[in-house]
């Protein structure tokens, strides 16, 4: 089979996929410049009281990825003797970062809710250093969004934890 016929067959059978692709193109991320994404991300982030209360800050945001940083505080300790962060606050940071990655990847058009979140704790997070979270919304469907995140301190090649979360698209937001 020639390359041309192959393409034609693919096009014919993937009409639905092409329609979805076109819809995605219309809502394309590329139509929004990086500063606009940063403003949108900051606005979403600043509307979450708990994220602000713990001091979570936005480092970088460009769909499908978001990078947030949680500066160290003594109140985040789980083990005073060993000087280790509590893992619960890592889940808070992961949930917030994954949520923002999903929100931006859906072009800020969907209301979202966390359905589930899994944390794998690879090594302890040590006191004194910030916790960085980089989330990546790798797949979306009409109803769902899938996201993973890596948590690290200073060295991205030595993650302290990995997070996996699924979000439901709970409604359509008015254009911003």
């Amino acid at each position: 089979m020639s390359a041309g016929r192959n393409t034609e067959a693919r096009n014919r059978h993937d009409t639905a996929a092409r329609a979805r692709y076109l819809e995605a193109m219309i809502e394309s991320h590329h139509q929004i410049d990086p500063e606009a994404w940063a403003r949108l991300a900051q606005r979403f982030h600043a509307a979450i009281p708990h994220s602000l209360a713990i001091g979570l800050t936005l480092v970088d945001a460009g769909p499908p990825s978001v990078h947030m940083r949680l500066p160290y505080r003594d109140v985040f300790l789980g083990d005073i003797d060993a000087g280790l962060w509590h893992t619960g606050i890592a889940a808070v940071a992961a949930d917030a970062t994954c949520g923002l990655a999903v929100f931006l990847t859906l072009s800020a058009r969907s209301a979202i809710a966390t359905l589930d979140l899994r944390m794998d704790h690879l090594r302890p997070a040590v006191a004194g250093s910030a916790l960085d979270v980089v989330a990546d919304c790798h797949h979306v469907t009409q109803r769902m969004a899938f996201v993973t995140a890596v948590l690290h301190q200073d060295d991205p090649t030595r993650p302290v934890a990995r997070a996996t979360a699924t979000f439901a698209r709970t409604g359509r937001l008015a254009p911003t």
Partner: protein
Amino acid sequence: MSVRGSTLASALAAGDDEAMIAAVPYARYLGLIVRTDAPGRRAYVMPYRDAHIGNASLPALHGGTLAALLELAMQFEALIDTPAPRLPDPVDFTIDYWRSAGPAECIASARLIRAGRHVAQVQAQCWQDNPDRPIAFARATFVLREASAAT
């Protein structure tokens, strides 16, 4: 063993839940308290605070705070059942969100499913006004520390 470590150990030995919570800064930060409605049945309560809100328009508690509450409840329950001078470390943790949590205190109960020599497997749920309408379910696996130092 350091002074702080023995604080946790002595709180356990004395069965002093308040001192046990006080030995963990992040549990204190969330305002966690323990209520005992029957011997050996603890409810871990996260009092309501405006700073715990995640969605201001609903309003709803931040999902992360529910995860933290459930993780702490499981961790303390595992610690009480397998006493050690330090909290057990979670290896992995999973939470399913069943409904959103309103602006009110949230109550968690945890159950140690199995404790072997090296790991403990725990489950927990949390609710607000009605235990029959749970808000979230969590499970976790913890690495158990050496018990010898605690005894």
